[in-house]
């Protein structure tokens, strides 16, 4: 009787404990959602004074970014194009190189080579962006001068290249993890059927690791869109509206960082910068939606 009672008691305690744990974990999950919501509300709230008093269409398509002075103009198209060009060109370089490096690292390199390369790549991912910026401003720009002979030493290509260099280690470390976590018995199943290493990679490993690979790409693109210091130092920051990759540009992030210290709190310029921040937020959000969509489509195709 006593034993039974204490057992009952135990079960009661366990229920409380499990309930508590569930609540705690739910709270953790909610905090992150809440923070996201708060950031959004903060940006939206502070951009409202600007959005209510200005033509949003003008804001999005205007080609002059002059938030200060007597006749301000709040067209973010040049900034938007700056972000787009720099990110796109950086991705075009970084995605193939990064995926190639990933496959080499996880499928081809000998264990000795891997043991050297992996930590090196992880260190690369951790270098502060100001160092990359310095390298772009002082070294990379010289090389670009010699090869492409642009009109300005600091330009979008410079920014794109340094962003590509920064994207690659992030992509490689995440994607390599994904390839590695494909169960060994799938690999063996494929090889035992007489598939070569390449066929196994193409038909089994990569499809099975695709969610992780897509995550790696999106994560590194998000890094490129959000990167500020390196692009400020590399791109020259001219706010001209151009699609010329060899011209100087100012991406959205750089505009924020450069203009915020100048803006008087409560001025229209001040609120306009929050609107720029909102646009940046929406871009990264859209990037993640695209990733979700790709993965959902992939799952449909797979099951």
């Amino acid at each position, binding site marked *: 009787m006593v034993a039974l009672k204490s057992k009952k008691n135990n079960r009661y305690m366990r229920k409380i404990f499990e309930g508590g744990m569930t609540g705690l974990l739910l709270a953790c999950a909610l905090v992150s959602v809440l923070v996201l919501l708060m950031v959004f509300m903060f940006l939206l709230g502070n951009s409202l004074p600007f959005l209510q008093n200005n033509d949003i269409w003008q804001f999005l398509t205007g080609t002059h970014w002059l938030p200060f002075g007597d006749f301000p103009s709040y067209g973010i198209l040049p900034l938007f194009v700056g972000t787009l060009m720099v990110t796109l060109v950086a991705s075009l370089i970084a995605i193939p190189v990064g995926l190639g490096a990933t496959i080499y690292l996880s499928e081809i390199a000998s264990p000795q080579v891997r043991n050297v390369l992996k930590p090196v790549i992880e260190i690369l991912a951790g270098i502060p962006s100001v160092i990359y910026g310095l390298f772009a401003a002082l070294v990379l720009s010289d090389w670009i001068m010699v090869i492409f002979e642009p009109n300005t030493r600091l330009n979008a290509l410079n920014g794109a290249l340094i962003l590509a260099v920064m994207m690659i280690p992030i992509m490689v470390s995440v994607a390599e993890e994904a390839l590695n976590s494909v169960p060994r018995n799938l690999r063996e199943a494929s090889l035992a059927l*007489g*598939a070569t290493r390449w066929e196994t990679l193409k038909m089994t490993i990569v499809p099975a690791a695709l969610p992780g690979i897509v995550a790696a790409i999106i994560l590194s693109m998000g890094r490129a869109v959000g990167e500020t210091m390196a692009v400020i130092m590399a791109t020259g920051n001219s706010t001209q509206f151009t699609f010329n990759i060899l011209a100087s540009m100012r991406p959205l992030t750089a505009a924020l960082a450069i203009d915020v210290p100048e803006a008087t709190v409560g001025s229209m310029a001040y609120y306009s910068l929050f609107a720029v921040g909102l646009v940046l937020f929406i871009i990264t959000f859209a990037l993640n939606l695209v990733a979700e969509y790709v993965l959902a489509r992939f799952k449909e195709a797979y099951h």
Partner: protein
Amino acid sequence: MSDIAVQDLNVWFDKNHALKNVNITVGGNQITAIIGPSGCGKSTFIRCINRMNDLIAGCKVEGKVIVDGKDIYDKDVDVVDIRKSIGMVFQKPNPFPKSIFENIAYAPRIHGVTDEDGNVHKASKQELAELVEWSLKRAALWDEVKDRLDKSAYNLSGGQQQRLCIARALAIKPEIILFDEPCSALDPIATAKIEDLLIDLKNDYTVLIVTHNMQQAGRVADKTAYFYLGDLIEYGETKQIFENPKQELTEQYITGRMG
């Protein structure tokens, strides 16, 4: 069907001498069971027959494995050709995360199909469908899955998944099929189905099966080989091995006096 003649086979994993001078000839159209305590080299032995051990860093194989008069460890042999003609089924069912159909079609898509004249060509849709149906029927799974070939193989039960893996191996039209403890993750009913299937398959294939289950060896195998610590201790008719073992070590194992 192919005989397999293994001569002076030695395998090392780094310093660990996992198979010691194994000599054995496995006949076609029969089932040969490999038994022995855990770690004695059973898996290593059958993985030598389709050269899966090549994949393991630090593994060294010496000796000959002669299939159809040809040593598969010869320098001029392409390992992919070997694996194409030998099917393998693993301990844990390992279907690909693809549809049932695509699991079976996996190898034919890669290797193409062979016509009556022995020419290999790319598999047409029609041929793939026929091959998938044939393989699933041969593995006694067709009736259970014919209405959901496009569904994920992961939705099948463990026993069905294992029969799917057998069907997948049959689709390469092998002469030899290797089973490494194919029933160890299955319940008795699923096990009985696989055993029936094994007995049916031996009419057309050379079948080797590693098993921990001595009743299973007794039920299905024509011949049985007993390994201990990397040595082939005894090999003979299953009945003789179980009822009248010649070696002391074999008898200890059979009667359960060895852990």
